[in-house]
């Protein structure tokens, strides 16, 4: 799960801003609509060159691609470290389409789905002028395992010999072979994994020069191959990306329009939003929330350069299907039927779209049928109370788990009060953000219910089902299947759809119907109390060509599409 980090003291600052600026807002009548659908990045009249500034509420976890895992890291890394496979630079669902990156073509997959073969483009150079070799890919993968990168399990769980290498039992990853003379790269998997091409698209696996230290280098990221290179890094404060003079254009990957992008990290998102509003900065980071105190002014004064974009992330309350009361399907249905998703959306400052399915839009497989228990935006409290009585679980004590940061704590406050309202005896337990998922992911705790979310790692439904709902994903620690769902139908469909090696992500749409059916089944069984999908702000200064700027479903702000008017 790609993390969207938030500023450290958002609650305090947000409250302060609300209180302090309550009387300052303009009209809120003009609200921007959520953008949806797919449209390619349009060619427009913007100019090339110049320097722009993006403000971030949170620093990247690391600018080194071998360690960076948050969206704040991915935005610069995707322009400085192009992997063998990349995503189309387009908005909406089209942005999930895989294209060849540094490889000459998408991976050629063997008949048994276990061997991926690619050829590195010739003539590529790193940003330090050094020629790129096929073995630099192997080195990058090994380096990411040694650091280790937050998503290393995508490799260790799938590539032959990767676990042994990570554990120090082998000197190299036996499943990866690279021929520097021909540029050929072959990867052998332990079992077919349909989303493996998506895994190859992480910047963590973009080539870095062999010999780069096998440690995280956040202050001086290694040379990479991309239209830009990262320079002037002051950790947690600022950095810049400038044009890479050694970049060789690759079809499908724009070479970037502006000469330089300055990234400034400032924890006060109110001042960040005001900076973009008054055009002293150019781009507001999409992973930050426009504070409610400033939102009315943004929507009224900058309606032509502000909109909300739904991203593939699902917010839900997990329901432990192995423990009372949610071992009863009726009890689970009661939650799904009675949950007031509009109230939750309000708590999220309007940045939530109510929903009931685990797979979020615009991901392939997101069910389009009406929700099995009625309109998610219309809660039925009476029915929920009735279902609790029918389930025989009325009065069951429930501990509701939640984390501190806003608005997640507020979600849990509402949810706890809702559970009490429909007949349970709920009390909440709020713990620190840094330890929350490790705590509820410890199977010994056997958490009954609580807040959870999932942001896609890559646009493939297996990223949700394989981790959140499959029976074999139940782990003693770091478990993400918090509901301990072990449903034979879900297991068999997840297995078969997930290993459809003949249908890697570029052909995924052919199987959309099967994923939709699975998603509908999951909703019907009420395994998750999904309450919505997050939307994120696309907000720029009036110096930016807003139409051509792509807020990409994988990359976040696609810096290669930014240009000045």
């Amino acid at each position, binding site marked *: *799960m790609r*993390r969207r980090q938030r*500023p*450290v*003291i958002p609650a*305090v*600052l947000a409250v*302060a*801003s609300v*209180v*302090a*600026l309550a009387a*300052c807002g303009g009209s809120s009548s003009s609200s921007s609509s959520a953008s949806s659908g797919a449209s390619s990045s349009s060619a427009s009249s913007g100019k090339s060159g110049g320097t722009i500034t993006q403000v971030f509420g949170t*620093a990247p976890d*690391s600018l080194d691609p071998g360690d960076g*895992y948050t969206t704040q890291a991915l935005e610069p890394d995707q322009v400085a470290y192009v992997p063998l496979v990349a995503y189309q630079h387009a908005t909406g669902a089209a942005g999930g389409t895989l294209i060849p990156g540094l490889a000459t073509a998408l991976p050629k997959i063997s008949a048994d789905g276990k061997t991926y073969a690619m050829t590195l483009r010739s003539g590529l150079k790193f940003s330090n002028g050094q020629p790129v070799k096929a073995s630099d890919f192997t080195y990058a993968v090994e380096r990411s395992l040694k650091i*280790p990168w*937050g*998503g*290393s*399990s995508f490799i*260790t*769980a799938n590539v032959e010999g990767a*676990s042994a290498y*990570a*554990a*120090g039992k082998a000197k190299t990853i036996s499943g990866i072979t690279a021929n520097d003379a021909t540029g050929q790269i072959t990867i052998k998997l332990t079992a077919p994994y349909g989303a493996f091409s998506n895994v190859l698209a992480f910047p963590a696996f973009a080539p870095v020069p062999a010999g780069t230290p096998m*440690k*995280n*280098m*956040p*202050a001086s990221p290694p040379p990479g191959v991309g239209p830009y290179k990262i320079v002037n890094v*002051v*950790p*947690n*404060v600022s950095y810049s990306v400038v044009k890479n003079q050694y970049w060789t254009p690759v079809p499908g990957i724009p070479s970037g329009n502006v000469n330089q992008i300055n990234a400034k*990290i*400032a*924890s*006060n998102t*109110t*001042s*960040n939003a*005001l*900076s973009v*509003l*008054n055009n*002293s900065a150019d781009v507001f980071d999409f992973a930050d929330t426009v504070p409610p105190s400033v939102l009315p002014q943004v929507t009224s004064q900058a309606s032509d350069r502000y909109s909300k974009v739904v991203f593939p992330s699902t917010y839900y309350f997990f329901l432990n299907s192995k423990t009372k009361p949610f071992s009863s399907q009726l009890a689970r249905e009661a939650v799904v039927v009675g949950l007031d998703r509009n109230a939750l959306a309000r708590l999220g400052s309007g940045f939530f779209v109510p929903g009931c399915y685990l797979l979020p839009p615009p991901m392939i497989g997101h069910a389009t049928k009406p929700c099995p228990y009625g309109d998610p935006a219309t809660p039925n409290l009476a029915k929920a109370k009735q279902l609790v009585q029918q389930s025989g679980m009325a009065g069951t004590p429930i501990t509701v788990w939640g984390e501190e940061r806003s608005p997640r704590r507020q979600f849990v406050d509402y949810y706890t009060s809702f559970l009490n309202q429909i007949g349970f005896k709920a009390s909440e337990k709020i*713990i*620190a953000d*840094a*330890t929350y998922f*490790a*705590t509820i*992911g410890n199977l010994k705790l056997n958490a009954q219910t609580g807040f959870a979310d999932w942001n896609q790692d890559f646009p493939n439904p297996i990223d949700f089902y394989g*981790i959140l709902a499959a029976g074999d994903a139940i*782990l003693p*620690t*770091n478990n*993400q299947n918090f509901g301990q769902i072990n449903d034979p139908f879900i297991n068999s469909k997840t297995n078969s759809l997930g290993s459809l090696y003949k249908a890697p992500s570029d052909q995924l749409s052919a199987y959309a119907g099967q994923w939709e059916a699975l998603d509908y089944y999951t909703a019907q069984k009420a395994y998750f109390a999904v309450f919505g999908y997050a939307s994120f702000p696309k907000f720029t200064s009036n110096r930016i060509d807003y139409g051509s700027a792509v807020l990409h479903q994988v990359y976040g702000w696609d810096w290669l599409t930014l240009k000045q008017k």
Partner: protein
Amino acid sequence: MLRFTIRRLIAAAGVLVVISILTFMIFQIIPNGDPAIRIAGRTANQAEIAQVRHEWGFDRPVYVQYVKTMGKIFTGTVVSYSQGVNVLDSIRQGLPATLSLAIGAGIIWLGLGILFGVITAVKAGRFTDRALTVLAFIGVSSPPFFLGALAIYYAGYKAGIIPLAGYVPLTQNPAQWFTHLIAPWLVLSVLFIGIYSRVLRSTILDTVHEDYVRTARAKGLSDRQVLVRHTLRNSLIPIVSLWGLDFAQVIGGGAILTESVFSLHGVGQFAADSIQRLDVPPVMVVTMLTAFFVVLLGAVVDIIYALLDPRIRLSA
């Protein structure tokens, strides 16, 4: 003086050791505070977590981990668990902003605190006293994040007379340095001005009844001379004591909210980020830094005591 310095140095070392042990132990007993789990990522399996635990040394006894961490702190090689950046480099990078904030604000709150304290004491019971008392209470009741938000919106966004956020080093552009800091200075000072003026007012009002003040008046000194040379000088002792502690705390990262509101990237903001991530090494270093400054400023305050009141001896 030498004995005083030696005694203070020994005390400082003791305080630093105790603070570092306490900080380290707090992170050891936090439930699920295992840094290996956070470093390995949310989807790491047990083998990967064990690998991280081994490579970072988290599988060793707690005292070994503590000693190793302290060793790295004193050799300057300690890195943050969550970001891998050198902690001392990060503090060195944040210290100019924090020092600029602390020194500027310290001068303002000391100067205005004394000024308002003297005025309210001299005009005790009159309109000026009451007005400044009300202002002092408003200052004490106004948290920095609230005043900061107002300053950013009205002076920054609406009027455009101060930048919205950030810090520019003095060496890079003195004018920009000043304009970026004027609002943080004032916002941070307001609370202290309120407290200091109230404390000084009450101390002055107590001191004016002392025998030596009466004697000074009997000698024929003017009211101003009595106030400045006798009353104020002795009344400043608690103010100096307060200032030393407050200033040390701000230098050691205590102005977390002011630094965060104005995105100054000082030591306080670094500390806040690290605490949020339960990142032990930076938190240890920042708490030790704070303790160091508190001890140091405590010693400076003792010296100033002796200058203000010759009856106080450093060797006592």
